[in-house]
């Protein structure tokens, strides 16, 4: 089903560009390595054939909308659409600029899990069909069920369908139900302080401060990030563990009440760090303390940027 969207995406992009409804169309094109597709922007309707969709479209396209002023056609699955909503709420783009082709999504394939399953043999090709995919390399070929290899955020996703769109690429996908979305967070919450500290220190011990996690995140659009500030300099730039931890914790807190758990950060990390362990805790807090999930509603301000006179907390009055 997911691959059939490719035809629909190409058709829509061509139509929208030809009719002058949009100046550019943003989607993905097939990557040069397996399980990797490249975000692409097309302005020539004749190039719509470049567009591609499969279960390896992991980078959040909302990244490419920030502060644009032109009219943009864009594809958006559940999480990406929630980031578009967040972008609209935070005045990074206007709804009127956008033509959203909604993608009912059944999740992305986790390349790391696939590599583990084939015992780290070199993968030359991955072909997807009807909820299954076949992995080929020198001297091996194995077929797997996609549902067993979902990226971790997709496995616990409760919003597969776009929350905002002008047109849909296919029938709405059945939403997942009855999942224990925060099982991993609860496990960490149950630890004592020392174990937690140890856990998070081990988690980031291989960090090389490349900032792929931050830059893959559509929420991180500050013109100067706190780690890049020089006057004053808040964070050191070496690989000192204190500085690295400061970066990770502060990055996560900047995303509190805004993160849609799209998983782009984790997918982007060249060192395979599960950076969502930071943001997911804050998503859980946002849900429990404010009954809030980011990006579901264009008309509602996020809990971290709103003040209500009838707030039930005493300290704020």
């Amino acid at each position, binding site marked *: 089903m997911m691959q059939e969207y490719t035809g629909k995406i190409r058709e829509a992009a061509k139509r929208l560009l030809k009719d002058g409804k949009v100046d550019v169309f943003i989607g993905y094109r097939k990557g*040069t390595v397996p399980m990797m597709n*490249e975000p692409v922007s097309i302005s020539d309707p004749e190039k719509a054939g470049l567009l591609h969709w499969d279960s390896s479209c992991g980078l959040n396209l909302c990244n490419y909308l920030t502060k644009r002023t032109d009219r943009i056609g864009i594809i958006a699955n559940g999480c990406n659409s929630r980031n578009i909503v967040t972008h609209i709420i935070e005045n990074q783009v206007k709804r009127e600029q956008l033509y959203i082709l909604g993608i009912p999504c059944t999740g992305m394939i986790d390349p790391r899990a696939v590599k583990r399953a084939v015992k780290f043999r070199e993968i030359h090709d991955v072909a997807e069909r009807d909820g299954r995919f076949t992995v080929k390399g020198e001297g091996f070929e194995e077929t797997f069920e996609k549902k067993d290899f979902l990226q971790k955020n997709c496995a616990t996703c409760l919003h597969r369908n776009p929350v905002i769109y002008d047109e849909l690429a296919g029938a709405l996908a059945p939403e997942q139900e009855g999942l224990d979305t925060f099982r991993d967070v609860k496990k960490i919450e149950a630890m004592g302080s020392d174990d937690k500290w140890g856990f998070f220190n081990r988690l980031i011990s291989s960090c090389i401060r490349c900032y792929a996690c931050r830059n*893959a995140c559509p929420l991180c659009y500050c013109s100067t990030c706190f780690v890049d500030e020089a006057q004053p300099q808040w964070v050191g730039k070496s690989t000192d563990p204190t500085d690295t931890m400061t970066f990770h914790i502060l990055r996560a807190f900047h995303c509190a009440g805004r993160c849609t758990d799209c998983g782009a950060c984790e997918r982007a990390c060249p060192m*395979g760090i599960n950076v969502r362990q930071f943001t997911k805790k804050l998503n859980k807090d946002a849900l429990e303390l404010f009954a809030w999930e980011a990006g579901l509603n264009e008309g509602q301000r996020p809990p971290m940027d709103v003040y209500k006179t009838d707030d039930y907390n005493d300290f704020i009055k």
Partner: protein
Amino acid sequence: MTYKVFGKKDWAETLKAVRASYRVFVPVREGDFHNFRPLEDETIPNFDFFNTRLSPKSIVYPQSERMFECLTDPESPEKGVLKESAKDYTLQAIVGVRPCDAQAFQIVKRNFDNPEYSDPWWVRRFESTILIGLGCNAPCPTCFCSSVGGGPFDEGRLDVLLYDLGDKYAARGLTERGGEFISKLQGGNPADGKVMKEASALAAAANEKITSRLPSDKLGQKSVTALFNAPFWEEAAFSCINCGTCTFLCPTCWCFDIQDEVCGKQVDRIRNWDTCMSSLFTLEGSGHNPREKKFQRVRQRFMHKLKYYPDKFKNGVQCSGCGRCVRYCPVNIDIRQVAGLMNECEEK
């Protein structure tokens, strides 16, 4: 030159025994990937890898390195006196380095050790390092070493070349220092004609397996301005998120930034790897930034590797074809494709 065969069964112990003469680095499995780590008593070397996730460049050129230090203590007679930090130049051996990464050291050397400039720390540490290469029996689809002056069994930049022959390694000395390393390894038997033949066949087969290439043959004739002003840069850079993955994983990227850090009364002057993908890289004190836009930074990376460097040093491109940037770029910007665009770019 020395040519010996060592059984794999005792290989880890053989390497541990040679630590009396060298600090030894070996590939170690860390979760889903391998990296080079110092060989300690408890280390389990693992040579079952395509290549390490991080290149071995940090063994010679650490990501963060203390250059100088001083005290701010007003009581101290040495207050504010900058002193060179102690450095360790113990003789070291990187065992299992792939030929592409060995070539990368030579590429970096042209920058850190040339008639114009000589970086004291890089040069001394490189001089105290011997490279014990491991030929690639199974190059990946993202490997293109043979189109950038190397090859899966390229000997040119190694001290020793190891051939993985299933249950044993054939170790061929290529330099005097390499021969010395082999002679210090305990056990092993001299390689016979059969082993040598097997090893050469392995190398020939591996060469055949490399199908990927970096097109660069026409780049030398093109003018810098034409390439700089080529129309494709914005499109090629569209997907870039300006992270440092490509530059930090690259074995040939050498740029650094210098920072002073104060902790209590101690000041450290540290040099850290820098990345031209960051807008901070060129941000000037005045606030002006000559590479303010993303496409300018992406262009810089490719122009440096494929045009400025080759034009300056006349010794090929600044890339050894390891493919790390291709494999781990979060948005799939592929140097082979960009090189193709540059190579085919028409002069106006």
